[in-house]
């Protein structure tokens, strides 16, 4: 048997084939994401869920008689699914655009991403409730069973079909966008929507159709994927982050660029599986890092400007709710009494997550950058603290410090990479970089894969305070939280914090006054990572475990949700948000998988109806009330003066 570099051609070509198939899916998906992004300026995070809907749609059609017994419905097979499901998923997309997405066009881009994150959580959560983690089998259609032996490898017909059909769809999409009248509208509206409207074209309707089309592509990819991968609620979650990385690598330059990048990355992934299997899950993210370093605009992209901050803060600086000198003592007292009112362990969980949210608020609220990868800092610090405490016998405080140092370093590197790109890309890049850390943790031996690092000793603080005692542990955590809270407050009010504020409110102006704003953003990002690390390490010690969940993107989403619910940029918002989210997770824990649905719904509702969050809304309300009181008082004195005359 012939071998190539010691590798059998069967393996090589087999993996290349799998890579090519993955590449076809990447291409179809990133095409949809890129078209939606170009036209609607929405980072469509729900794209993965829509892909999953496609797969489930096919499965439903097949099982119509079982799902609706007594109606005499036929079982509709693959070919029906191929025709019907993309249209159905596209219609669902149109509906989603109409009901939800349309409402955020005029808002900061961040809200579009948050909204679609929420929608993805709801949809995937619902399917998780219904079907759990187990995948459903979907058989290859009869006509495409079997395969052909090419001599050097066996080529299953279905895989050949997926490649041919997928490529055809990509090329057809390219043709529609680049060569037809409809595509000309699309390209023109991407460049200058107002002028296109002034020509009499109904751009809002075009936006809906574009979204429906992109989503329909995801649905189609889902149908085609059903017989290859198992049909499972999780199938979209993992692919969407990869797709975002593909989009970052390719850039937004051209449709053909998106197709080429998708295919190429699939193949590279396949080849990596042959030569260095451990790296195959991370290779795309590593390529993303390289592209960001050497070609920040992406392989086919054009823009290179760095991320501009967006003012998302809802704080009113004059409100007494923003006065840290007042609230630090109040929080200290409340914190000291708390373990007598609620379970101390629950209290510690709230404190850890409140600190995490405060850290996140530093970059999202104070600077206005939508970071979406804080799980990387929280989780890596948790792992390092757990590992150094458990395996190296580090004393507790040193273990926590080690975790923080690692989180800070990772934060500095990620920040340096991500700040090169604009707006929504910043979110995509931080998300993808965090996923890199997640995949690393799955593979690395010291992290113990799915098990995580368990039975971490809590140890003795300063060598003599026994942290296995719950109350001791609680007050230690409280002290950490208060120090973190005070430090973050100080940063916000420091000379540095003033510059951050100016960057958030008007970055071009800050630059014109001589501030190299990227450096300020990088330092803020690094500090934010450091405090997120402090929270993660503390959490690992308290709960005596570091697990993959700490690194998963849902943890990043938690930080976002807490900040959003509480009030972005406010002093107390992250704490309130942490209380709400942690309580919600506890209360709904009995409902199991429903937690994700509830959290997703909270995201959506916050974006649509409570953008200022609890604290921001409260501050607004108080300000308006005192304003109207003032006016009323002025009016009264005015009347009195008139009466005197």
């Amino acid at each position, binding site marked *: 048997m012939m071998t190539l570099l010691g590798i059998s051609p069967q393996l090589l070509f087999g993996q290349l084939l799998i890579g090519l198939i993955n590449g076809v899916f990447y291409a179809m998906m990133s095409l949809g994401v890129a078209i939606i992004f170009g036209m609607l300026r929405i980072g469509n995070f729900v794209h993965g869920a829509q892909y999953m809907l496609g797969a489930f749609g096919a499965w439903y059609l097949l099982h119509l008689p079982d799902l609706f017994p007594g109606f005499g419905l036929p079982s509709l097979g693959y070919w029906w699914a191929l025709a019907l499901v993309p249209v159905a998923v596209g219609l669902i997309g149109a509906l989603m655009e109409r009901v939800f997405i349309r409402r955020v066009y005029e808002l900061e881009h961040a809200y579009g991403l948050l909204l679609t994150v929420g929608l993805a959580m709801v949809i995937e959560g619902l399917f998780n409730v219904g079907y759990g983690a187990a995948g459903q089998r979907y058989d290859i259609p009869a006509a495409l069973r079997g395969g052909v032996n090419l001599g050097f490898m066996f080529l299953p017909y279905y895989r050949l079909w997926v490649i041919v059909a997928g490529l055809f769809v990509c090329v057809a999409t390219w043709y529609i966008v680049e060569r037809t009248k409809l595509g000309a509208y699309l390209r023109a509206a991407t460049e200058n929507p107002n002028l296109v409207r002034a020509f009499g074209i109904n751009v809002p309707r075009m936006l809906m159709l574009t979204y429906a089309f992109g989503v329909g592509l995801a649905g189609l990819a889902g149908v085609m994927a059903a017989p290859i991968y198992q049909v499972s609620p999780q199938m979209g979650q993992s692919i969407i982050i990869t797709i975002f990385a593909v989009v970052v690598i390719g850039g937004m330059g051209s449709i053909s660029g998106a197709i080429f990048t998708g295919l190429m990355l699939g193949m590279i992934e396949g080849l990596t599986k042959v030569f260095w299997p451990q790296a195959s899950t991370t290779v795309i993210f590593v390529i993303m890092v390289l592209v960001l370093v050497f070609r920040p605009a992406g392989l086919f992209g054009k823009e290179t400007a760095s991320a501009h901050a967006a003012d998302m803060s809802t704080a009113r600086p004059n409100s007494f709710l923003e006065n840290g000198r007042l609230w630090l003592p109040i929080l200290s007292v409340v914190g000291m009494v708390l373990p007598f009112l609620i379970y101390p362990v629950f209290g510690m969980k709230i404190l850890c997550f409140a600190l995490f949210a405060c850290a996140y608020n530093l970059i999202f609220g104070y600077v206005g950058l939508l970071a979406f990868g804080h799980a990387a800092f929280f989780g890596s610090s948790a792992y390092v603290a757990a590992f150094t405490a458990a395996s190296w016998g580090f004393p507790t405080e040193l273990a926590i410090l080690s975790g923080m140092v690692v989180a800070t370093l990772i934060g500095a590197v990620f920040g340096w990479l991500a700040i090169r790109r604009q707006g929504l890309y910043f979110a995509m890049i931080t998300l993808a970089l965090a996923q890199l850390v997640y995949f690393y943790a799955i593979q690395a031996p010291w992290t113990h894969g799915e098990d995580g690092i368990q039975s971490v000793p809590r140890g003795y603080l300063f060598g003599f305070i026994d942290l296995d005692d719950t109350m001791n542990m609680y007050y230690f955590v409280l002290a950490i939280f208060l120090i973190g809270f005070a430090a973050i407050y100080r940063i916000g009010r420091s*000379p540095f914090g003033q510059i951050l504020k100016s960057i958030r409110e008007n970055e*071009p102006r800050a630059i*014109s006054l001589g501030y190299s704003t990227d450096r300020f953003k990088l*330092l803020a990002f690094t500090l934010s990572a450091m405090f997120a690390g402090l929270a993660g390490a503390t959490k690992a010690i308290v709960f005596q475990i570091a697990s993959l969940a700490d690194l998963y993107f849902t943890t990043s989403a938690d930080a976002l949700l807490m900040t959003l619910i509480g009030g972005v940029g406010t002093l107390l918002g992250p704490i309130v948000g942490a209380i709400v989210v942690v309580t919600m997770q506890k209360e709904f824990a009995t409902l199991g998988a429903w937690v994700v649905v509830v959290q997703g719904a909270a995201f959506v509702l916050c974006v649509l109806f409570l953008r200022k969050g609890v604290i921001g809304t409260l501050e607004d309300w108080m300000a308006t009330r005192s304003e109207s009181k003032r006016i009323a008082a002025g009016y009264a004195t005015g009347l009195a003066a008139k009466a005197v005359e």
Partner: protein
Amino acid sequence: MTIAADNIIEVRGLTKRFHGFAAISNVDLDVRRQSIHALIGPNGAGKTTFFNLITKVHQPSGGSIRFNGEDITNEDPARVARRGIVRSFQISAIFPRMTVAENVRIALQRPKGTSFHFWRSESSLSVLEDRVDELLAAVGLEHMRDQTAAGLPYGRKRALEFATTLAVEPELLLLDEPTSGLGTEDVERIAALIRSVSANRTILMVEHNLSIVARLADKITVLARGKILAEGTYAEVSTDPRVIEAYIGGEE
């Protein structure tokens, strides 16, 4: 042969192309130290582009820019600002949710060298308050110092932007249409302000209000179609037939 010391800025062969279209082509321009120099011209002449090139918001496609004799063609915008070239914007550039005093203080903060000091208290900046008050008094905003900037009337915002710009002690002040969108009273206020700050400073301004230009400018450069059409005093420029043609249209 030019004497570098006399010119604060010397632009040679400056060119900027967008999609192959030359917005600025081969412009030579000298600005004399401590003068008020106005840049005028019909719409689309390239005035704002020229500003963006000097402040490095855009990278030139060709040519060179020297400031105080040093080549700044390839520097980044923040660096150029630190050298002392500071601009105002067409749309009032303020920090809307900060107070009037904080707006000015941001600009004063940089020379202190503590801008990266995240561990210090804000009160470490209180030494700047006197200077803040001076600057606010100079633009007539002293009684509004603790108001939120967003709440100011438009004319006052422009005044605040002016105070913030002055706070950086720019050697070269670039004003992009300082009077646009203002009522008559505000226009007069700004004009007086420009006059008063021009001592010991160089001002390069783009302006549409020609009565302001006529009153303030020592020298006027007329741009048209990305090229310099004429240069001189107001009297020279306003009677130049090429300028009249550019503004009113040529004979066939």
